[in-house]
């Protein structure tokens, strides 16, 4: 018997891993996380990061959702009620079923924060040692104050009226914006350390005096003077805005019987609906067609549902005294070619004017600046930005609000105040030549709105300016789902009180509605990229996702399956 020893066993068994195969070398394109701008955000005059707001809201992270709004807009509960929400018109989801109820969600979040007493984030900016005076505590002035305070600038607001809020307090009826909501959102701004002086009308003398005490002045006094009709007997026409203001201060009387309200914008609607609530029978008289009315469609519909009559293609040409009221002469009109502004003009239709008896006639055709110095002069040293104008020089003056914004909306006013605040901050810290560039760099997408978060270089600054198109969305992940609507008071009951007509979304509805959002261009941690990567190269890390390029083969599954166009493929350079 021969001795033997066991020979080594060499057979097919693994003793290492595939980690040795750097399959990344196969790749000719790489996936890149490139968050983009959502079209809603680009359309928002206040530059709110809406896609991220809804992302947080859908996950029940309401506090973060609200903070995301409030970073760009310190008046969420106000805007959630009165904003004309151009965001919804831009919403990509409209091409699938219906846009997200962004406005209703903003109100939901705004109310939740008010209920919780959540303060505005101050961002703990170091004190710059600069002081700015703001004329006017309307939305533009309040916004400017808020953003300046957050950037470490001392602010004092001077308001001619007894209460702050401007048009929000005096122009918008309580059934659209309860005054307690406004008051609490203003308080929250003041809590950032903003000084407020009411009953302090600002005049040119003040400006001269302020030049010594302040490093800059912001003028945001808004349109306070009514636009004139320029018709005979105009002095018998009541000023609608003044009427609304008086109702806010306690007036509860209105003419009995049929009252004419001249105009087709939101002021006319507000005046008519307020008259209705005080017992009048308002008739809106508008010179163009119904479809040309500048008022919000939903406001027009609400007014009619409540009982406001609307008569179109009638132009007022004269007012005269009449027993128990006035006689209003109305010229029938017909539509003509569009004018220079693209809107269809109305011209006399050839019929004879009619004369109608009304208990009273109110104008609701808007307002304009109250004094020439409320708007910037055409001077070489004036820097004109999309929503504000900045007179540089030794005593800088920023003009904000109605006279300098493309649209006279609350959101535009807020965007205006923010733009001025960021401009002044750049002026203080980097000098006049840096201002235009700095404002350019913090635009939301292609602009014009600017973002505090981008200005601060926070997460949103990494967002590509390209806006996400509907075609970029992977709609496989979005089954058709009905848009949620807040419930409204029945029109009959609504017309009898100044109670708010629209209710807030129910909590479950709000979350579900937020869940409909595509979150265009914003990662919501859906994890598709990680879950579907055939090669497990996507890793979730503390602040997002990381792709291991040593192994990524560049197949593109992650990019195709990214529902919201955050990922994109980029060709490898040879």
């Amino acid at each position, binding site marked *: 018997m021969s001795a033997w020893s066991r020979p080594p066993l*060499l*057979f097919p068994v693994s003793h290492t891993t595939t980690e040795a195969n750097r399959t990344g070398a196969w790749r000719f394109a790489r996936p890149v996380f490139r968050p983009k701008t959502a079209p809603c955000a680009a359309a928002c005059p206040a530059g709110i990061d809406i896609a991220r707001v809804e992302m947080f809201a859908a996950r029940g992270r309401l506090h973060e959702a609200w903070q995301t709004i409030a970073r760009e807009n310190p008046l969420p509960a106000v805007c959630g009620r009165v904003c004309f929400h151009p965001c919804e018109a831009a919403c990509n989801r409209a091409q699938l079923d219906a846009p997200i109820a962004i406005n209703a969600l903003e109100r939901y979040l705004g109310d939740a924060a008010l209920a919780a007493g959540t303060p505005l984030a101050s961002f703990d900016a170091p004190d710059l040692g600069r002081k700015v005076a703001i004329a006017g505590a309307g939305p533009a002035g309040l916004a400017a104050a808020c953003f300046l305070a957050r950037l470490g600038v001392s602010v004092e607001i001077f308001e001619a009226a007894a209460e702050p809020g401007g048009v929000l307090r005096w122009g918008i009826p309580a059934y659209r914006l309860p005054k307690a909501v406004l008051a609490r959102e203003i308080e929250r701004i003041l809590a950032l350390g903003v000084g407020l002086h009411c009953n302090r009308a600002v005049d040119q003398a003040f400006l001269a005096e302020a030049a010594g005490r302040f490093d800059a002045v912001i003028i945001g006094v808004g349109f306070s003077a009514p636009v004139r009709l320029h018709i005979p007997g105009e002095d018998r026409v009541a000023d609608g805005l003044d009427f609304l203001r008086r109702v806010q201060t306690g007036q509860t009387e209105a003419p009995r019987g049929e009252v004419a309200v001249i105009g087709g914008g939101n002021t006319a609607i507000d005046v008519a609906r307020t008259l209705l609530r005080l017992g009048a029978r308002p008739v809106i008289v508008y010179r163009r067609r119904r479809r040309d009315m500048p008022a919000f469609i939903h406001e027009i519909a609400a007014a009619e549902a409540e009982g406001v009559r609307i008569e179109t293609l009638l132009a007022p040409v004269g007012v005269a005294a009449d027993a128990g009221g006035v006689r209003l002469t109305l010229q029938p009109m017909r539509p003509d070619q569009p004018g220079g502004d693209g809107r269809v003009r109305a011209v006399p239709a050839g019929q004879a004017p009619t004369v109608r008896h009304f208990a009273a006639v109110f104008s609701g055709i808007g307002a304009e600046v109250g004094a020439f110095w409320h708007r910037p002069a055409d001077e070489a040293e004036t820097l004109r930005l999309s929503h504000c104008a900045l007179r540089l020089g030794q005593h800088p003056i920023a003009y904000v609000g109605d006279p300098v914004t493309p649209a006279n909306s609350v959101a535009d006013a807020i965007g205006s105040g923010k733009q001025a605040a960021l401009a002044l901050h750049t002026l203080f810290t980097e000098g006049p030549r840096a201002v235009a560039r700095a404002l350019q760099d913090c635009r939301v997408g292609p602009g014009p709105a600017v973002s505090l978060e981008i200005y601060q270089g926070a997460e949103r600054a990494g967002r590509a300016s390209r806006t996400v198109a509907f075609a970029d969305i992977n709609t496989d992940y979005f089954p058709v789902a009905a848009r949620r609507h807040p419930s409204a008071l029945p029109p009959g009951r609504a017309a009898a009180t100044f109670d708010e007509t629209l209710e807030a979304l129910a909590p479950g509805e709000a979350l579900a509605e937020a869940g409909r959002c595509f979150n265009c261009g914003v990662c919501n941690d859906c994890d598709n990229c990680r879950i579907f990567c055939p090669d497990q190269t996507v890793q979730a890390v503390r602040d997002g996702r990381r792709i291991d390029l040593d192994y990524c083969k560049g197949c593109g599954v992650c990019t195709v399956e990214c529902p919201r166009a955050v990922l994109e493929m980029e060709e490898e350079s040879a």
Partner: protein
Amino acid sequence: MRQVLEGSHAISEAARLARVQVVSGYPITPQTHIIEALSQHCADGTLAARFIPVESEHSAMSAVIGAAATGVRAFTATSSHGLALMHEMLHWAAAARLPIVMGEVNRALGPGWNIWMDQSDSLAQRDTGWIQLYCEDAQDALDTTLIGFRLAEAVNLPVMVIIDAFYISHTYEPVDVPEQAAVDRFLPPPNPRFRLDPADPKSLYPMVGPPAFMEMRRSLQDAMEVAEAALAQAAAAFKTEFGRSCPPIEADGCEDAEIVLVTTGSITSTARLVVEDLRARGERVGLCKLKLFRPFPAEGIRRVLGRAPRVAVIDRNVSFGVGGIFAQEIRSALCSLERRPPVFSYIVGLGGRDVPPETIAEIYRSTREAAAPDPESRWVGLNPELMGAAAR
């Protein structure tokens, strides 16, 4: 304890005593009794094993491969077409280096259907990497099976324990069945060199490309090269425990023989009678029983047969176009010798045809009288009438 067992049950008893843990099988005559007995043991609880009644022999071998890969002792048995159907998995089991033991009952392959003794089935698997051990009778079958487990686990190669259809499988003989305690001493529980284990996850048998394949096949060859010594060692341990020897080659009176007969399987027993008779009549005849066919014990063959004036190899098989397979292997083992004994090749008993003492005596006579071996194997016992009918 001495019992009267049929050859099939000698193998199943050995598997039981070896405490196999997984058995799989598929019925085929004449193997069926082996797996029947084992399934009965599993059912009765006389064997703590899982019996997997599969739907083909291919699956039977696959099942024991899966089981053996977890490190348990696994067993199956088959025959003929069943073995042929297993062919792919025989390669797999061997290159997988799994110490599987299989009972194999030699049977012819069709057509025509033939369930009787013929070695063509097992010899057709000679290149699969299995150790092949041929048995002479039931006792040999039991002993070889027990040794087979020890050998398989020593060298990580599968072992085929081969018995003749009916002549052994269905023949009752007295068999000394060892005590369990003694078997446990001889065959401790398996101690695998590798196994599937979630705590130490490995990939067993992945693709191997040209850079490593040859070395792995060389490793298998290395194991084959020590298998004969390992068998000898196992047989020695067996003898110590049980008192019976079980050598790879058994030589009886070969040293001074004029003619040495080489046999395998049950023919050996018949040849023993013939040799005894011839010696009584003064003939110098030796008998060489070959147990180990793979690895082929070439050195032992040269030692036993190298000085014989004439060697007659009795093959119960044929490699068509060549002849008797054992004869060919023996010729090639001897060809390195300076003086090579002439090897006479005889083909007998295919498809279960009886090989009586007269046939072996005729082979002896023919070897003694011939001037030199025929260039081809001589077929013994063909029916001239049938051959003539074919010619017509």
